[in-house]
């Protein structure tokens, strides 16, 4: 077991997959000489050469579109979108093309590719370098969406994404890059896509979350424990397909559910989690299903006051958890 930063776990897993399989290559803006603006691909150009670490022109639709073509021709592209906010010009290629290639060709063609993108706020990124975009894709059959919260999952889910025969969106939370450290196994086992993980066991209330929310919930759970409230924390890890079994089990365990995410609330992933519970575990509930999520504004402001007002906090999560426990 090595202890790594979240960003190191991503970097290392990517490098190892490239070493393991010559079909894997990286493309994106500034991923080569610069090693990525966050340095996720640092050193890959030197190690794997220009042919496998491609600095593309500033064109997100082409990054994804070219990756689709390359994957059809037998390669495994790992495309980087510099910031998740800038994935929007590529939405047509992702939703019309990558997501539908297998289905539309009746299983003749497929797109084994990964799109990595740093998302989330709390890093002075202002309106356009802080967004959470996952909910635009979790609605789309044909796509898989993962959002690791820990270094181990970051590594394991990246491996799984690269080895998956279908397109996977891999969203990495910017604020976790250098703030979270954790053990990562030496083995190169993937973490299965589609499986949530209980990050803390508890009996009074259930928090279902992902990404940065996992860390906030765990810290809040620690505080609540001091007051004798026992919180169960489920990390979704994969947002599409959702792990229905794990969600229902976690909901039933305590009968009180709080869903937490940084992304806007309305029609966010939390809505589906809640609807799933309301459809399949309604009578196990002892309280209304609560959601604590980003406010209904386009994104967070640059001013620290506005960023803070937008972002979830341990205080805020703890308060929502207490309120639910009291219910």
């Amino acid at each position, binding site marked *: 077991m090595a202890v790594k930063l979240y960003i190191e776990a991503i970097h290392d897993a990517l490098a190892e997959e490239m070493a393991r399989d010559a079909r894997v290559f990286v493309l994106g803006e500034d991923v080569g000489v610069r090693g990525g603006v966050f340095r996720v691909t640092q050193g890959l150009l030197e190690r794997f050469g220009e042919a496998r670490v491609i600095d*593309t022109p500033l064109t997100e639709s082409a990054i994804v579109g070219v990756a689709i073509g390359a994957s059809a021709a037998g390669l495994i592209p790992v495309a980087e979108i510099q910031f998740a906010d800038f994935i929007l010009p590529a939405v047509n290629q992702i939703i019309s093309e990558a997501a539908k290639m297998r289905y539309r060709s009746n299983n003749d063609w497929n797109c084994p590719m990964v799109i990595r993108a740093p998302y989330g706020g709390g890093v002075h990124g202002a309106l356009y370098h802080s967004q959470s975009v996952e909910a635009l894709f979790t609605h789309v059959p044909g796509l898989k969406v993962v959002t690791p919260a820990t270094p181990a999952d970051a590594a394991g889910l990246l491996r799984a994404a690269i080895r998956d025969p279908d397109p996977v969106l891999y969203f990495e939370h910017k604020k976790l890059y250098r703030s979270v450290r954790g053990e990562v196994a030496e083995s190169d086992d993937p973490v299965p896509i589609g499986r949530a993980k209980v990050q803390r066991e508890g009996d009074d209330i259930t928090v279902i979350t992902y990404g940065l929310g996992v860390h906030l919930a765990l810290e809040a759970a620690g505080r609540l424990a001091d007051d004798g409230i026992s919180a169960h924390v489920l990390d979704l890890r994969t947002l599409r397909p959702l792990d229905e079994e794990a969600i229902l089990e976690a909901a039933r365990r305590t009968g009180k559910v709080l869903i937490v995410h940084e992304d806007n609330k309305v029609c966010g992933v939390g809505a589906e989690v809640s609807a799933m519970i309301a459809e399949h575990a309604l009578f196990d509930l002892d309280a209304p299903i609560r959601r604590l999520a980003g406010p209904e504004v386009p994104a967070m402001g640059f001013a620290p006051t506005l960023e803070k007002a937008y972002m979830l906090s341990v205080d805020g999560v703890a308060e929502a958890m207490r309120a639910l426990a009291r219910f």
Partner: protein
Amino acid sequence: MADVPRHRALGLTDAQVLEMYRYMALARAVDERMWLLNRAGKVPFVISCQGQEAAQAGAGFALDRGRDWLCPYYRDLCLVLIWGHTARTELLAAFAKAEDPNSGGRQMPGHYGDRRLRILSGSSPVGTQIPHAVGIALAMKMRGEDAVCYVSFGEGTSNQGDFHEALNFAGVHKLPVIFFCENNKYAISVPERRQLACANVADRAQGYGFEGVIVDGMDALEVYRVVREAVDKARRGGGPTLIEAKTYRLSPHSSDDDDRSYRSREEVEEARRGDGIERMRQYLVSVGLLDEEAEERMRQTIRAEVDEATEYAERAPYAAPETLMHHVYAEEV
């Protein structure tokens, strides 16, 4: 030199040029059959290649069916026939039957795809296939294969952002890809001059650092020549070429269209007089490769082929309703 017929000077055998003609005639016959079936209420939708067969035949013969890749667009019936599809496969698609190799009846006709033949599956949003072709060419280059990737699209589509991003990418990375614009003068009802203000789509190549070539798309042999040059260049590592074939769409945009609202019958008739199939026929007659009898024989074979295909396709089963859920992801069935 004056005595060598054009096709031989270009390196095409007599048999090849006759085949070329046969494919053009076959494509037209399949296309016409689909319209008949549509008007008879038997197939819900047709999108046509009529007027563009010569361009497609020239391109198809200039490529190597044994190694090259295609990202065709919805009018490329003649091209995919050359590439190995048949009247039967395309009528299966028109009838939306399970056996359709393009999509098993999931997509509209004209949405070609066949992995066995290296035809990448296409969709309806126009222009998305252009970056795909660039990605395929990138794979060819990375693996050191000498195959090229061919991608086609209309002049209206050359205005889409994906066209620009893809050609730029291919130019920067000098990839073996042939961008083939079938300029048929209209994008549904919008004439060329309201789609783009440059004289030629090919003029855009300059903005990507490679050659743009204009060719008479009604002249299959001339198209063959320029595509052949582009293919040879691409195989030698010389990078992409943008070729614009000037054609004309003889039929309405699709079976849902009524083109009388936006163009005159005279204009269409005038264009019909320059039809590339007729031009090829006259050429073959002039070089002594075709006479009325041979023509009639060919037409009969084609008719039989199309009849058989229609009958087969009409009888073939639809995909079962429960297959709706199949193939969203791998190994799900």
